[in-house]
């Protein structure tokens, strides 16, 4: 912490808050790129490690989150490099099954960058990150309850037991979280 305080840039690093503030954001970012929850979790952890180790290189020109995302990007690239070199460069894998899909496999292998599904995926990813950015601005308890209820789909009873609150507390927290999210999420996401 001492060394960071000497820099006094526009943005500062505060590693103690990283996990609470950015873990879910980075996790969503990673999942949409590696499509594997366990791996995504590892990449997030590695990102934090790398961040801690190179904290002295942080110049403060970008926000903490942007900086961490940049590290995560490298981690994702490194991951794909690693599996590619394991596979051998000449090998191209195609999931080509000998059934009714025969003949259409070639078309499926060629990604059309303008295809609708791909655009939807990009949009959903942006939306997911926007929501997580807003969740990270909520008071901790609200964020926690909202995530447990909405993302993990936990039962009201389980959440109440875990956080030792009663159901009406829970619903007030959910209501407050949802109101703030509605205010925080860009109007563009809401259809008029």
């Amino acid at each position: 912490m001492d060394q960071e305080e000497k820099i006094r840039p526009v943005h500062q690093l505060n590693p103690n808050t990283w996990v609470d503030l950015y873990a879910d954001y980075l996790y969503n970012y990673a999942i949409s790129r590696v499509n594997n929850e366990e791996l995504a979790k590892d990449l997030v952890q590695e990102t934090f490690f790398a961040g801690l180790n190179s904290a002295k290189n942080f110049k403060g020109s970008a926000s903490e989150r942007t900086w961490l995302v940049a590290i995560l990007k490298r981690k994702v690239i490194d991951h794909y490099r690693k599996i590619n070199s394991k596979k051998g460069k000449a090998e191209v894998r195609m999931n080509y099954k000998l059934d009714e899909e025969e003949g259409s496999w070639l078309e499926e292998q060629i990604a059309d960058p303008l295809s609708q599904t791909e655009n939807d995926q990009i949009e959903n990813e942006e939306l997911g990150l926007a929501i997580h950015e807003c969740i990270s601005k909520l008071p901790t308890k609200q964020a926690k309850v909202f995530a447990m209820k909405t993302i993990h789909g936990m039962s009201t009873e389980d959440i109440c037991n875990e956080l030792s609150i009663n159901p009406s507390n829970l619903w007030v927290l959910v209501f407050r979280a949802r109101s703030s999210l509605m205010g925080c999420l860009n109007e563009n996401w809401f259809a008029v």
Partner: protein
Amino acid sequence: MITCEEAQTICSKNQYKETSWQERFSLRFHLLMCKACAKFSKKNTQLTGLCEEASLHALTDTEKTEIKKTLSRDS
């Protein structure tokens, strides 16, 4: 007649389909009377849709605590 805050809390509860029919009834009635809450309710329902669309992922508390532990141990 329920208050606006009650209506909005029930409305949020309703997003998770955990309201009783009495609650839904009083919410409906309130929404007919109150434009502000009707607007809130519409947006709240849209938020539910957005959250589904985004297929959100989050680490559990236990996973986060684990990461914190590993970070403080190994750094």
